[in-house]
C-alpha cells in the first residue's frame, strides 16, 4: 500500500492551532489592509472601458504603437504585450462624450494606417461604466448568497458550531485569495470572480469531509477529549485531503500553463485558493468549532420521535 502519510498514530494537529490561528489572523489582517489600501486591480468587466487585443505579423513595437495612438488622441491608452510578442493588448478608460462602442474600431483603423502590415483584430471588449458597477454588485451579492446558502446547508446537516467553523474557513479562503490579488496587483475580472466561487465550492467540499469525520469520530470514541477527537479525525482524513488537493492542483497547473492567457487569472485564483482551502479545512474549521466548545453531546444523532408515540394505543 502506497501512502503519502504512513501512520496509525494520531498526529497532534491541534497542538499548533494557536500558532496557526495567529498566522491566519495576520494573513487575513494583511489582506484586508492591502484591500483597503491598494484596492483590487479591477479588470474591464468592472471598471468599464474599452479593451483591444490585436495580433501583428512581426513582434510588435510597443513604443511605435503608443506614439501612433498618442497622435490620434488616445494618449491614455495602456499598451502591453499579451501572451506572445506579436500580440498586444490595448486598454482605454471609459470616455465621456465619445460614441464609446466606436472606439475599438477607430483604434484598429489607426493602427492599420500606421503599420503597413496586417493588423489582426483578435478581440474587442467594451463595457459601459454602469454595466461594470452592476457586475461588482452582482458579484458581491453572489458571493454573499453562496456563503449564506452553504452556511444554512451545513447548519442543517451538521451543527451550528461546525457550520460557523466551515464558513469561517470559507471567508478566510476568499479574503486571502482577494488579498493575494490585491498585493500582487493581478487583474480581477469576471473569470477570477468565477474562480473565487469555485474556490468556495472546493474549500467547502474539503471542509465538509473533515467536519463529517469529526462528527463520526465524536460518536465512535466516547472517551476521547474534543482535541483528541479532532486530531484523530484530521489524521484519518489527511491522506484523502492531500490526494484530492494534489490531483486538483495537477489539473490547475495544466490550465495555468496550457489554458492560454485568457484563463490565467482564473487558474491563479484557483491554484492559490485550493492550497489555502486545503490548509483552512484542516486548521480553521476545526479550531473555530473547538473555540465555540463543540462536544460529543452536540453531535449525537437526535432520536426521531415517532408520531403518536406519546399517545396510548387505541383500545
Amino acid at each position: 500500500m502506497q501512502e503519502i502519510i504512513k501512520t496509525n498514530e494520531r498526529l497532534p494537529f491541534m497542538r499548533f492551532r494557536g500558532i496557526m490561528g495567529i498566522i491566519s489572523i495576520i494573513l487575513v489582517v494583511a489582506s484586508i489592509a492591502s484591500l483597503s489600501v491598494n484596492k483590487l486591480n479591477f479588470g474591464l468587466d468592472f471598471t468599464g472601458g474599452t479593451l483591444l487585443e490585436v495580433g501583428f505579423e512581426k513582434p510588435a513595437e510597443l513604443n511605435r504603437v503608443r506614439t501612433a495612438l498618442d497622435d490620434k488622441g488616445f494618449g491614455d491608452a495602456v499598451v502591453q504585450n499579451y501572451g506572445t510578442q506579436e500580440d498586444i493588448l490595448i486598454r482605454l478608460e471609459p470616455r465621456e462624450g465619445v460614441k464609446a462602442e466606436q472606439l475599438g474600431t477607430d483604434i484598429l483603423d489607426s493602427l492599420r494606417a500606421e503599420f503597413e502590415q496586417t493588423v489582426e483584430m483578435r478581440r474587442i471588449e467594451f463595457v459601459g461604466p454602469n454595466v461594470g458597477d452592476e457586475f461588482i454588485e452582482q458579484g458581491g451579492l453572489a458571493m454573499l448568497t453562496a456563503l449564506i446558502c452553504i452556511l444554512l446547508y451545513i447548519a442543517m446537516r451538521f451543527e451550528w458550531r461546525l457550520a460557523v467553523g466551515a464558513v469561517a474557513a470559507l471567508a478566510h479562503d476568499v479574503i486571502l485569495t482577494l488579498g493575494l490579488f490585491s498585493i500582487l496587483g493581478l487583474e480581477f475580472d469576471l473569470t477570477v470572480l468565477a474562480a473565487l466561487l469555485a474556490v468556495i465550492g472546493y474549500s467547502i467540499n474539503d471542509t465538509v469531509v473533515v467536519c463529517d469525520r469529526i462528527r463520526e469520530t465524536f460518536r465512535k470514541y466516547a472517551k476521547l477529549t474534543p482535541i483528541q477527537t479532532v486530531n484523530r479525525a484530521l489524521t484519518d482524513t489527511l491522506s484523502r485531503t492531500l490526494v484530492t488537493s494534489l490531483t486538483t492542483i495537477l489539473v490547475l497547473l495544466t490550465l495555468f500553463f496550457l489554458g492560454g492567457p485568457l484563463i490565467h487569472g482564473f487558474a491563479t485564483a484557483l491554484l492559490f485558493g485550493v492550497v489555502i482551502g486545503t490548509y483552512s479545512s484542516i486548521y480553521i474549521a476545526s479550531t473555530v468549532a473547538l473555540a465555540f466548545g463543540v462536544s460529543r453531546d452536540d453531535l449525537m444523532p437526535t432520536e426521531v420521535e415517532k408520531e403518536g408515540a406519546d399517545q396510548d394505543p387505541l383500545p
Partner: protein
Amino acid sequence: MLNKYPLWKNLLIIFIVLVAALYALPNIYGEDPAVQVSANRNATIDTSTMDRVKSSLENVGIQAKSIALEEEQLLVRLNSDDEQLKARETILDSLGDNYIVALNLAPATPEWLKSVGAQPMKLGLDLRGGVHFLMEIDMDEAVRKIVDGMKDTIRTELREERIRYSAVRVDDTTVEVELRTDEAYAEAASYLDGRYQGYNLVEDEENRLLQLQMSDQKLAETRDYAVSQNITIMRNRVNELGVAEPVIQRQGSNRIVVELPGVQDTARAKEILGATATLEFRMVDSENDIRDAQNGRVPFGSELMPMRDGPQQLLKEDVILTGDHIVNAGVGYDEYNRPQVNITLDGAGGNKMSMATKDNVGQPMATVFIEYKATDERDEKGNLQFTKNAEVINVATIQSRLGSSFRITGVGANEAQNLALLLRAGALIAPIQIVEERTVGPSLGQQNIDSGTQAIFWGFVLVLAFMVVYYKKFGLVANCALAANLILIIGVMSMIPGATLTLPGMAGIVLTVGMAVDANVLIFERIREEIKAKRSPQQAIHHGYDSALSTIADANVTTLIAALILFAIGNGPIKGFAITLAIGIITSMFTAIVGTRAIVNSVWGGKKLSKLPI
C-alpha cells in the same frame, strides 16, 4: 458479503454510458464551411431555388459538397473556406435582394447520428468568434413619444369638437388641457372622460385644468412594447446583416442581448444595430427669408435646422410624415446611374403624403434625418441620456403629387445603402445604445479551443497517471470512471439544447476532472482503513463504499450550490463554467459511486480474496 450487482444494474450502467457516448460522438466530426440561404419577405424557398443556386455555383466552378433544403432554409455545404465567400456572393447575385445569404459553419454530423437527434455541443462566442452586444433602451423616450402622440390627438379632437382650449401640454406622463371658459371645461371634461384607454382623467375645476394621466398598466405596456418592438427591429436588422444562428433576447426590463456568431465586420454591424434613425418629411419654408431667421427672427411655425454638407435650412414645423409609415426602402439607380433611395409608404402615409404635396408641386421638401446618440450621461434614476440630432439630409423639389411610392435622390452610394437599410428595418419608438460589447476574432476563437482542449487532455493524463501509481488496480477502476465521466459531461452538454461550451466552461471540465476523483479517493481511503482495521476484503469494499456515501453527497451538494449561484448571476462565459461544473458534479457522483462499484463488484466481488490490490 457478496458484493455483486444484479445483471440489470450492470446493463443499465453500460446503457447510460453508451447513450452518452452516442450523443457525444458528433463532436468529433468537425464542421463544414457552408452558406445558408433563407427567404426574406414574400420570397419562398423550394426545389427551384435549389436548382438556381446549384447552377449558378456550377457556372463559377464551385462544386458544393451538398445542398439541402431544411425547414425553409437552404444549406449549401462547401469543400473549403476559400469557396465560402465566393459562393455567398454568387448566390446573392443570382437570387437577388429577397433572400438572406449568410455564412455559416454547419456541423458535419453523419446522417445516422442526426436521425437520433445527436448534435455537437454549441460553442460560445469566445470559442467560435463573433460579437456579443448588450443594448439598453431609453424607456423615458419611449414613454415621451407615446404621450406626445396623445397630446396631438387630443388637440386635433378638441379642435374638431370645437371645444376652445388655451393650451394642451405634456408634463412627464401626463397631458394637461387648459380650457378658456367654464362651459368649455364642462364640455371637454365630459368628452374626454373615459375616452382613452389607459389614461385616467383628473379634474381641476378651479383652474379649468384637465389632466390625463397615463395609468401604471399603460406605462408597463408601453415599456414592454418598446422592448418587443426593439427586439423585432433588431431581428430585422440582423437579418439584413446575414448572420446564421443569431441570438436576440430580452435581458431584464430594458436590455436586449444580441449575439452574432462569426461576424467579422463589427464596425458595420454596430452601425446598423446601434444607430436609431428615423426620417421626417417637412416642407421648406420658402415664404420667409432665411437670413432673418439666422439673425434671430425665426418666423412662427418654422424652425432652423442644420444640413449635412450644406447651409442651414428653414423648415416648417409641421411634419408631413414620420418614418413609421415607411413600409419599404431600397437603393436604386436613376438614368444617370446616380444612387437613390426608393421609398414605399403604407396607406395612411400615402394619403398624408398625397394631401400635403397636392398643393405644393414645385415647392422644395426636406428630408430630415433624426438620430439619437447616447451621451454617456445618466439622470438620477441611472437611465441613459440621449440627445436628438436632427439634420436635413436632402432637399428636393416636389416634381408631382406624391403617392405611397416615391424616391429620394442626391444621396451618396454608401449613405443610400445604409439609409435604405435602416428605413427598411423600421423606425424605433425608443432609442437604444450598446452598453457592452465583446468581440472575438475567429483566430482567437480557434486558439481558445486548442488551448482548452490541450489543458483538458494533459490534466486528464496527469490525473490518470497519478491514480494508477497511487491506487494500483483500484486506480485503474477510478480511471475508467473518470473517462466515463468525461464522456457523460460531453454527451449531456450536447443533449441539453441551451448549454453552450465556453472557454471557462472548458476550465470547468478540467476542474471537474481534478475533483471527480475525490469521491473515489474518499471511498478508497475508507477501504484502506477498513483493511487496516483487519476486515476481510469483501467487508472492506462494502463498508468503504457505504460509509463514504454520505460524505460524498454532502461535499457535492455544497459545491453544487456554488455552481447554481454562479449560473444564476453569471453572464455568458461564466454561465458556461457553471453549467459544466454542475453537470460534472452530478455525472461524477454517478460514475465514481455506481460506476466504480460495478467494476469493483464484477472484478473482485463474490470471491474469496486474501488481499485487495489497493
